């Protein structure tokens, strides 16, 4: 049934966006997580990649509709910024400490976008539910 599938697609969207929010939270929480031994690498920013996932529906066919899935949680490449702090436990021989490559501005942007997409999915879900309710009401 189409409306049923529409609900499921929207739910997949919600799930993907909340995974993204979780990763953003993780990145922000680890904004200051340096290594613990001299010269060790600090926390590396994680990234989420979405992929369209076409459901191979049996029988009536998926109708070519793609749901969404988090296809990969990877790490962001890029050099670490170094700060001079000889007293730090993670300072290397020169006295420099590698800082995580997390930029809070980028994370906040990502969070906003995830939030916006999440509410868009919720709105579609509500409309679909309204349609479903209307169909049920024709039985009365």
């Amino acid at each position, binding site marked *: 049934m189409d409306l049923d*599938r529409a609900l499921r697609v929207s739910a997949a969207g919600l799930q993907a966006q909340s995974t993204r929010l979780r990763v953003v939270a993780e990145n922000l929480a680890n904004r200051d997580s340096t290594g613990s031994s001299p010269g060790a690498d600090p926390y590396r920013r994680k990234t989420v990649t979405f992929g369209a996932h076409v459901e191979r529906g049996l029988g009536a066919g998926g109708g070519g509709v793609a749901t969404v899935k988090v296809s990969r949680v990877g790490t962001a490449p890029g050099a670490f910024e170094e700060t001079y702090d000889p007293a730090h436990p993670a300072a290397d021989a020169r006295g420099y400490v590698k800082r995580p490559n997390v930029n809070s501005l980028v994370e906040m942007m990502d969070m906003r976008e995830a939030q916006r997409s999440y509410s868009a999915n919720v709105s579609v879900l509500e409309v679909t539910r309204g349609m479903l309710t209307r169909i049920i009401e024709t039985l009365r």
Partner: protein
Amino acid sequence: MTTEARPTTDLLRLTERRMAWLEARQRVLAGNVANADTPGYQPRDVRSFASVLAGAGGGGAPMAATDPRHLTARNDPMLARPDRSAPDSAPNGNAVSLDREALKVAETDSAHSLAAALHRRYLGMFRTALGRQG
């Protein structure tokens, strides 16, 4: 299908098909919104209701399959196809515009409301004819 025209039942069937089309469209739009951040995703839409209605008469019988996993020819008129009128895409190749999709969802919702109301009215006329309060 009877050749004798019975307007009321025809209208009932029409509203039913309209609702089925709107539901298929809602599913496609939900897929677009869910993929609003998927790199390289092109929004989809179903064929217009008018062309689905026009093509429905001579659609032909579907291909027979002895197993549900067999691939059949997709002559399903409700099949989603890429929306060619989509505006230019974001740097990651995604061409979904949330406002466009929101507009389409709102359109679908109100059209569905209309079709459902018409359906109810016609059924109410049958009830009236049967002497009950519709």
